[in-house]
């Protein structure tokens, strides 16, 4: 979760305090490259693939996957941004950030959509994203790529591409940023 998003989420004004670094910048890069390879392998190329980063944490990750896919396959995969706030079942628990607008400037009919997010936790964001995607068309398939799967799912959702499986306690917090991944707590 991006810092600004956290500040606006309950408990308001909570600050993330890192306890351990679980991935560094190199680990992130390697995981991204591996996931890019997996996406190519699973789909037999990326001609039909589009990436959609979930606002806000998934967007930079989707862009890095796009760079990797371009270098590996030489295909410039379209990248969209999706804000799922209006589709959440816990609407009101997360803020609607003015700058985090949805931007899906391409058709999804028949495409293979790879949803990209930083952390997979309860699965509720992904459920909302699946709902949101339907208002843009009917993709041939929807897949899910996350940098960290921290468990504690509340819905029958599983990722197709995972950077790292990270067992956590429910009250812990995971922070994915440009220089790595930290495990810690949100304190007030």
């Amino acid at each position, binding site marked *: 979760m991006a810092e600004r998003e956290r500040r*606006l989420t309950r408990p308001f*004004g909570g600050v993330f305090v890192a306890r351990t670094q679980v991935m560094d910048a190199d680990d992130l890069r390697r995981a991204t490259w591996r996931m890019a390879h997996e996406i190519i392998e699973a789909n037999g190329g990326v001609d039909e693939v589009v990436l959609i980063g979930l606002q806000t944490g998934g967007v930079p990750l989707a862009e890095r996957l796009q760079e990797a896919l371009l270098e590996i396959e030489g295909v410039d995969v379209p990248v969209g941004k999706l804000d799922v706030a*209006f*589709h959440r079942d816990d*609407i*009101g628990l997360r803020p609607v950030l003015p700058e985090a607008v949805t931007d899906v400037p391409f058709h999804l009919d028949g495409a293979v959509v790879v949803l990209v997010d930083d952390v997979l936790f309860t699965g509720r964001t992904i459920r909302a994203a699946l709902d949101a995607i339907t208002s843009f068309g009917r993709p041939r398939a929807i897949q899910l790529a996350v940098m960290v799967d921290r468990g504690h799912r509340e819905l029958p959702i599983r990722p197709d591409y995972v950077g790292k499986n990270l067992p956590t306690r429910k009250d812990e917090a995971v922070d994915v940023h440009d220089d790595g991944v930290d495990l810690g707590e949100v304190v007030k």
Partner: protein
Amino acid sequence: MTDLLSISDLERGDIERLLDLTDHFAEVSARPIPKVPALRGKTVVSLFYEDSTRTRLSFETAAKRLSADTMNFSVSTSSVKKGESLRDTAQTIEAMGIDCVVVRHKSSGVPWQLTRWVDAAVVNAGDGWHEHPTQALLDCYTIRQQRGSLDGMHIAIVGDVKHSRVARSDIWAFTKLGATVTVVAPPTLLPPAIGTYPVRVSHDIDSVLPTVDAVYLLRMQRERMTEALLPSLREYTATYGLTRERARLLPDDALVMHPGPINRGVEVDPDVADEVRSVIIDQVRNGVSVRMAVLFLLLGSGSELLPPEVAVPEAV
């Protein structure tokens, strides 16, 4: 924010955040299926004691795109005909379980009065000569879309300012967002207290037009012209209408705006209304997005979605 009654009691920051949020709903409106489940289970009722096409349809479209249920109340087919009071009508509707009342009434202050009688959120869709806040918000959004910001802009509001709630809301909104406003009208169509508004006053449209970034034409409200305020509409067009000749006085990039419905040939020449720099159709389109933002703020867990700079958070 629990109700939207007027622009004059909003802060600049409130207006800006609402306009920022509108971007989200403009995006929703542009989707192949322009509907999100954000207000599922909420009921919005429009209580219109005055005629309206675009405002009512716009609110209804906005509510439906957010998946709210809508109820329509029109005076001509209701118990108001049997003499039911506004208070009884409001409380009757509320007893059916509603979350928001969108009200238009010929008397100023009715929306405010309603907030004392019902718990539902109240949105002013025009009250008498007082205010029409969502119109002003969509006007600001349209200008921002074209220019990025209203700061430092010079906007002329031309026409029947006296009877216009749009003009009052716009004056507050434009000036709060940093624009300079000049009202241009014959003295009979200016409110007596125009001196208390943060505007310049002119009676000569030809001298004002070359200096503006946008010209906002008000509708000549024939239904309110009970007194003899003008010799004739034709004379008004000759002295204050945006004719083709007059439109040439405007800077090339000046915006032409109108709240609708247009009296073509009265306040604006038909060709000018359809010109490229006319953003009249954008105003209508943006109206839906702005009203979605308003309904969402008031009903979609409301203030909790505003950054804490506005809503002071409670510890959980």
